């Protein structure tokens, strides 16, 4: 997955402020947290940056497919073991008699659940990583045996 430094390498590095950010590095960070899109950087449209522009679109493509908390499930890696579903503290708090003891969810308040053999995210606003006062919780990542869950 891309990081801010990698994105910065492909930006014009002129700190022109046309995107509304004070520096190109700030723009890279904003791009990674999905505050802005590549289109905000107008100098990138010039012919001399054409290659960089295409490369950037490629880099940020997976970021755009993620949920509001930046959660990405790599479906080809996930085998639906449900470790993340049972380990997620929000899931357990919202459904102690269902996913809390390893069983199927008994209500709709859970964030993660397994459907057709692959984990799916819903109720993203309940996630600890959502909103301004977010906590960088990583319990669904460390319990995944195949590294199928990622936050960007």
């Amino acid at each position, binding site marked *: 997955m891309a990081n801010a430094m990698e994105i910065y390498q492909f930006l014009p590095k002129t700190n022109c402020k046309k995107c509304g950010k004070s520096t190109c590095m700030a723009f890279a960070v904003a791009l990674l947290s999905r505050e802005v899109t590549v289109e905000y950087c107008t100098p990138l449209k010039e012919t001399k940056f054409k290659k960089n522009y295409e490369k950037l679109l490629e880099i940020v493509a997976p970021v755009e497919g993620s949920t509001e908390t930046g959660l990405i499930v790599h479906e080809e890696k996930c085998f639906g*073991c*449900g470790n993340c*579903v*049972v*380990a997620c503290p929000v899931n357990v708090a919202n459904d102690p008699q269902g996913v809390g003891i*390893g*069983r*199927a969810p008994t209500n709709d308040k859970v964030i993660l659940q397994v459907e057709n053999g692959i984990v799916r995210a819903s109720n993203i606003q309940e996630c600890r990583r959502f909103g301004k006062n977010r906590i960088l919780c990583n319990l669904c990542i460390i319990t995944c*045996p195949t590294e199928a869950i990622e936050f960007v």
Partner: protein
Amino acid sequence: MVSCLNKNYYVCTGCALLCDDIEVEVSGDQITTIKTACRKGFSRIRGCIEPMPCIVNGKNVDINTAIKDAAKILKNADKPLIFGLGNSTSEAQKQAIKLAKRIDAFIDDTSSFCQGPTLEAILHGKIRTCTLDDVRNRADVIVYWGADPSNSHPRHLSRYSYFPRGEERQRGWEEDRTAIVIDVRKSHTAKICGDKFFQIPLHTDAFFIDALIDALSGKVPNMLFDYDIKNLLKLANILKKAQFGIIFEGFGIYNIEYMETMARLMGKLNEVSNFHLIPMVEHYNMRGFNQNLFEETGFLNRVKFKKCEKGFDVKYGVDYSIMEVLNTKKIDAALIIGSDPMSYLPRSAAEYLLEIPLVSVGPCENFTSRVAKVTIPSALSGVECGGSAVRMDGVKVRFEPIIKRARLSDEEILKRIIEAI
């Protein structure tokens, strides 16, 4: 089917965990969404990509002709073999045992070359065991020995053993439980266990167990291979402190020689703490077959029936196992039910199956059915037909069909074969 809070739950027959909390959405006769099942269960419930055809000598026929021809082959054979049944319901297994008695057949299943010895020790009461619900409610030290449940039984950790909260383990995996992996490679399960992964060289389980018994007895362990003794003592300390320990024994350690050593380890562990053992059975009803045959004959597998004046005579031993009867060419026909020996037996043994008339019964096409003289399609148990099965820990689970299709179940096919004979 279990009803809970207005939801209908079905049982998944993908592996021997028999998860009974699967939600299914059906439209018409198609299953559209399967919730809670892992990828293994999902592909089982979704059904076969290539369904079994109904064939006699390479020609498509109707099921009545196929059953008649199968009965003819088995009737004319002097020493037939019945093999498989790990993916059949207990009711079908009982019919297969009845058929074996009728035709003086050899009967065996996959446990004869995997976990037979462990199950035998458990059924004879030589090793302490418990149920998976006990594990969820009480276990604090969980050992996966030669097992990788993340791949073989994907929901094992999340449903029963490591992650869920239980009655006496309210903080679940975060504080109350310790998971240990002893394996020859860093498996997916070992990744979750972090520093509680003890890697040992190939074929050294027996030496490792001996050294561990020494460490548990307070002696200086005698390591016969290159291994850090500090690591071993760390493991022994964790095991000693267990309030309710459980060993999940996988395919990595199944040999009969290891079984004796394992029984000694279990004895030692129960002297110093409290330990149980559950074998990681793979096919959903392999343990069911072993228990059914045990009730009938006193043996788990590798049995040959012979009619006599008193009724029937039972012979048991290594000579009657599938590997031995194929290697020594003892059989002259075979009925394979819900299994694919052509793909997993060694070539030297499997080759003989090409020389004899073969009857294959099962829901999906496989290598064995492709070389079989007669193939009979059956309903996918747990999806198209109901029945009962025995979970890996010995708990009997009943299940209902999810959808109804016109195919006959294994039980009905076997009943009709018995009638035709």
